[in-house]
């Protein structure tokens, strides 16, 4: 029997043969622009911060939504993220990409929030996003809502650390090395968390659709 050890999984992002269905955030951040804006922010330019915020906010909002799963919490966490970013940006010296830096802030904000939320009673009423697209038919909108509910329910089953790794890899298109740099852990730990997160996520989805006991 072949042993498929999770640590040996070839998760490297080199030359993917087919486009992954994930990756909504990949390639959206203009690193050059971000670097220029950060230099201006360090010099006290408030407008540069505003531009950086507008350039990144959609990605950050979507990422935070996947990380915490509740629409109403996203706005507060967005504020938290950008406040932290503004305070942390003066220490950003370009050792990593801005995306890694930004997602590190997101991960810290989400992790704190998820840990805090685990100690509080669950409010099931605010799971779904309510952003409606005028181009979708009611049936498409219903399917989309159902899909998002399934995904969020399955994500809720993951521990915060596994969830961050899973979301960053599956939904933000980050490779294990970048995730390791973002969350401050080893690549092997990231692969291990991703391996378990995938199994747990898939199992949770199958349970939800009634295929597994």
């Amino acid at each position, binding site marked *: *029997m*072949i042993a*498929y050890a999770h640590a040996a*999984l*070839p*998760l*490297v992002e*080199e*030359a*993917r*043969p*087919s*486009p*992954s*269905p*994930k990756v*909504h955030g990949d390639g959206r951040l203009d690193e050059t622009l971000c670097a220029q804006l950060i230099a201006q922010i360090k010099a*006290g330019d*408030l*407008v540069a*911060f*505003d*531009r950086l915020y507008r350039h990144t*906010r*959609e990605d950050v*909002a*979507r990422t*935070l*939504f*996947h990380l915490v799963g509740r*629409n109403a919490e*996203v*706005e507060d966490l*967005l*504020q938290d993220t*950008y*406040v932290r970013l*503004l305070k942390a940006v*003066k220490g950003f010296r370009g050792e990593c990409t801005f995306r890694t830096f930004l997602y590190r802030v997101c991960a810290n904000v989400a992790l704190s929030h998820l840990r805090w939320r685990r100690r509080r009673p669950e409010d099931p009423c605010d799971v779904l*996003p*309510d*952003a*409606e697209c005028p181009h979708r038919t009611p049936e498409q909108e219903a399917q*989309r809502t159902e*899909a*998002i509910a*399934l*995904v*969020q329910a399955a994500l809720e089953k993951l521990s915060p650390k596994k969830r961050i790794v899973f979301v960053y890899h*599956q*939904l933000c298109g980050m490779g294990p090395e970048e995730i390791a740099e973002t969350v401050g852990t080893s690549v092997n730990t990231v692969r291990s968390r991703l*391996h378990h997160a*995938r*199994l747990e*996520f*898939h199992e949770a*989805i*199958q349970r939800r*659709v009634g*295929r597994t006991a």
Partner: protein
Amino acid sequence: MSCPDTSTLWSLEAGELHGDSRAATLAHALSCLACQSTRNELRETLSLLSVDARPAVQWSRVDAALDDVSAKEMLRRAGPLPLWKWMLPAGGFALLAAAVTMLVHSPAPVTTKPVVVAEVAAAPVMEVTAPKPIAEVQSLHAGKQRLTFSFGSGGHGELGPHSSATVDGSLITLSSGTLIASAERELVIHAGAVSVKGDGRVKLSVSQSSRFFEVAVSDGAVLVERADAQPVWIHQGESVRFDRAKGTSVSKKADVGAQVKQRTPDPGVEKSSEELFLGRAEHAVQRGSCGDFLLGLETLAFDAEEEPVRERARIVKARCHDARVEPDKAGIEYRRYLRDFPTGNFAEEARKAVQAE
């Protein structure tokens, strides 16, 4: 070959397997019904992950919150009181105006009374920030910076910008401007016709301008005496204000302790500086050379005590960006203006500018 686990099949579906491992896994999966079933389930799972889960964010709410926070953070970084940034051009303008006046008119003595300087012209000027012990009667005058000093037995004082006072032990005579004082024992402050007396631990601010006189207490209690009014006790968290024109006490309100901690400036001096600065900035906008005024304008737009000053500073800042051909920045300022002053005097101008973007 045995069936690969779900995670490996996931990697196969996601295109993450390469070379031999991909070929071997794929060859097995194509010939194994169980693996084909798992692959079908995984495709469904992956398709769920591709759904666009864009949250509905009320960006205006987030924008507004972040505007305030980021402006505060930037001001904090710029320093606690970056007055010099805009006092320099304002002072330069004042000197220029004085020079022009002297050239145009005869060299007769100026009849208008300078706000502070004339009263303390003979006093030694101490531009220091470290506390200076006062051993004997001494006149103090703060220039552009605040002046801190110690007095009596363990007392500490701080004169606001352009303020002046005479200190004799525990007796302080405030000639003009603002004084913040804390004392452990006896403290007497004379300011014009008003006396403030504390006995014991007390911290307070005393401000006087041509229009009013105000005492605010953040710790302890003081007795405020005035020749033509009943003495009044002002306790921690309270303030009292006398209107010089009306000659009566006009207010005694609670919860103002913070203003002592926040170094209440002299409104009389500050107001004229603000107006001077704004006028100078508007002039610079017309000339298209207003870049040096931007930080000062932001400070005023964010922090000025009076709303008309904040409003005018915001619109002047927007015009300045317009003059500098910075449409993005101008747009942000116009939107901020509309957010803060939707029915303001310049709302129509701001609205047109935003619509024209």
